[in-house]
């Protein structure tokens, strides 16, 4: 387990009864706030600091989520149950994943009753995955034992054929402490390693040797959650594209940039052709520059000719990972500066928790520092001065 989790007390049942009302305090304006706000926020910042910069990332991700649907997922140590909690968090994860990795793909595999079942194929459409997950949101879904090997083999079958430049990943959410496999699982691990598939595991109960071996052999990560919050934090770390393997291939990928056009005649689009309902005939849409098929939404892989269709802003969304913003330094000394207000939000800077951009040496308050690094990815100071206005665009 990571070192920064050590300060939280170990097992939940060893804790005192949680007096959540005592952690609330009234601030100067009469608003309620958590006493340990400061502490939580420092932890968030520490996590940001841990992110490495300037390494090659696997931008075109192909990720399979393996979801354990065994009896163990019915446990109620997460509220209301492990399954429901996981499904809710995964829904958020999928939204975030496609927001930050717009040209990546995702698929979901479930495992129960010693079998593995593909809930959704690899695709770039978040709605398909979300609806696959909501189908499992009912009682008596969790049955029998999971089979790690079967699930991994299912994922491997579709991931191994991907081109060399793609980043192949499996994320396993595992509640059970056991797995029921048809043959030697170590051989599966070796073959996954050969296929350069990175497997990460999130354990919901306790550390399991077989999961740990899987993660270390395939250079993934293995985490066991403490509580729901910790679960969410760990899951969200998988939104950030991982470092690419040293021997990963690079390639130029052919992509289409269709324009949103109005055609004179209304027509059906290719993306809604499969769905029974909601067939819309309209005249506007994106037309594949290669085969002229129509789509209502981007990004999409053309069903007729297989060309990946994206728009320039989709590629731009990934720049925040490729060109990360430099971390601000915390000002600890009492040195006076002429700058009394935070450069971002104009609020008065307090004595402590002041952060300074190393580039433009403008000062920011704690909240702005977090916002700038988590969401904005632009330093207001650097982009407000002419000398620094040219930001890494070679």
């Amino acid at each position: 387990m990571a070192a920064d989790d050590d300060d939280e007390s170990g097992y939940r049942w060893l804790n005192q009864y949680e007096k959540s009302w005592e952690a609330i305090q009234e601030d100067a304006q009469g608003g309620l706030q958590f006493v340990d706000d400061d502490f939580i926020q420092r932890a968030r910042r520490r996590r940001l600091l841990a992110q490495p910069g300037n390494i090659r990332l696997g931008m075109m991700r192909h990720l399979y989520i393996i979801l354990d649907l065994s009896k163990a997922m019915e446990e109620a140590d997460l509220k209301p149950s492990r399954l429901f909690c996981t499904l809710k968090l995964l829904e958020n994860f999928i939204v975030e994943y496609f927001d930050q990795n717009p040209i990546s793909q995702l698929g979901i595999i479930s495992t129960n009753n010693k079998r593995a079942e593909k809930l959704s194929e690899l695709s770039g459409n978040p709605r398909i995955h979300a609806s696959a997950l909501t189908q499992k949101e009912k009682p008596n879904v969790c049955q029998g034992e999971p089979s790690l090997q079967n699930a991994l083999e299912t994922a491997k079958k579709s991931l191994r054929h991907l081109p060399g430049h793609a980043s192949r990943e499996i994320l396993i959410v595992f509640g059970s402490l056991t797995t029921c496999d048809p043959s030697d699982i170590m051989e599966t691990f070796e073959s996954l390693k050969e296929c350069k598939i990175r497997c990460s595991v999130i354990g919901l109960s306790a550390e399991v040797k077989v999961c740990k071996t899987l993660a270390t052999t395939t250079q993934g990560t293995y985490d066991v959650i403490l509580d729901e919050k910790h679960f969410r934090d760990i899951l969200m770390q998988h939104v950030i594209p991982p470092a690419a393997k040293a021997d990963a291939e690079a390639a130029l990928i052919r992509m289409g940039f269709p324009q949103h056009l109005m055609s004179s005649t209304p027509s059906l689009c290719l993306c809604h052709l499969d769905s029974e309902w909601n067939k819309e005939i309209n005249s506007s849409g994106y037309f594949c520059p290669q085969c002229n098929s129509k789509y209502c939404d981007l990004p999409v892989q053309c069903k007729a000719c297989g060309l990946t269709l994206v728009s320039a802003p989709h590629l731009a969304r990934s720049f925040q990972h490729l060109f990360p913003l430099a971390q601000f330094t915390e000002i600890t000394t009492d040195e006076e500066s002429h700058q009394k207000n935070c450069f971002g939000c104009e609020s008065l800077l307090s004595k402590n928790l002041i952060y300074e951009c190393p580039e433009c040496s403008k000062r920011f308050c704690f909240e702005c520092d977090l916002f700038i690094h988590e969401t904005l990815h632009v330093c207001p100071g650097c982009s407000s001065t002419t000398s620094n206005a040219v930001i890494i665009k070679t």
Partner: protein
Amino acid sequence: MAEDTFRRLLVVVCDLSPIWWGKQAANASENSDKMQPINAFLNNVLVFCNAHLMMKHTNELAIVCATSSKSQFIYPCPEDVSDANGEESYGNMDGKYEHFATMNNVVVDKVKNIIEEESADDVNLPENSATLLAGALSMTLCYIRQAERNCPVGQSMKARILVLKGSQDVSTQYMATMNCIFAAQKNNVTIDSCLLMSDSGFLQQASDITGGVYFKITKMESLLQYLLWMFLPDPNTRESLVMPGAVQIDYRAACFCHRTLVDIGFVCSVCLSIYCQLLPRCHTCQTRFKLPSAAMTRPKKKKKEKTAD
């Protein structure tokens, strides 16, 4: 409207690029002896701002100015106004609502200061230096974030940004601007853009992605009317109004090698640079590519590349 508990925050981002306004002034002085264009512009904007504040007592306002060398908040201003010029000089404006009178004076003073500072040190500015839109937008988003945080309990804030811009876009600000747009989209901040005389590709995308209105004004005389008709109603009210139709936005990408718009391009799998033809090596990140199938047809060329290094 009892159920409406939103505090509406409007942040106006004004482009005060001295070069652009200078050109406008030069044009205007040729034809007539009317008011300086920037004065007329400022008057219109202030009327619009007052109108926004008058709509509801919970409405809030902020104004940010962007020039080619800096971006700055001009209202609410960080320094205490009263000690700078004295409260009295602002207060007595025969019959005018005091709050508005103060605000208007603060804004006019600030703008004067900015322009004076600009003219003092803009001698060495290149002709094509552009307004720092990204800087102003990022400051605005930080401010909105802070305003949302400080919102009284039980109320929620709905913020939107109105950008008034005349000068040209510069491609060096592309990444910063796009990041701002995505952050705005994530925080449900609408970006409306009102362009003065010339179109802007950045703001077209900004308004389209965040669901705002994009409009180009061709006559400065009609600025106020457009502002009041189109940009005063909040996004919810707009649904019941007839707004100008959405513009066709060109989302095609420009290739990094020739800066031409491409329909089908090649994207580097490592750094996502866009090229219009196959290359053996990425210009941006220096990665060598394994050429697909093309390598089979042109083995000679690949060999040459290797020996050249």
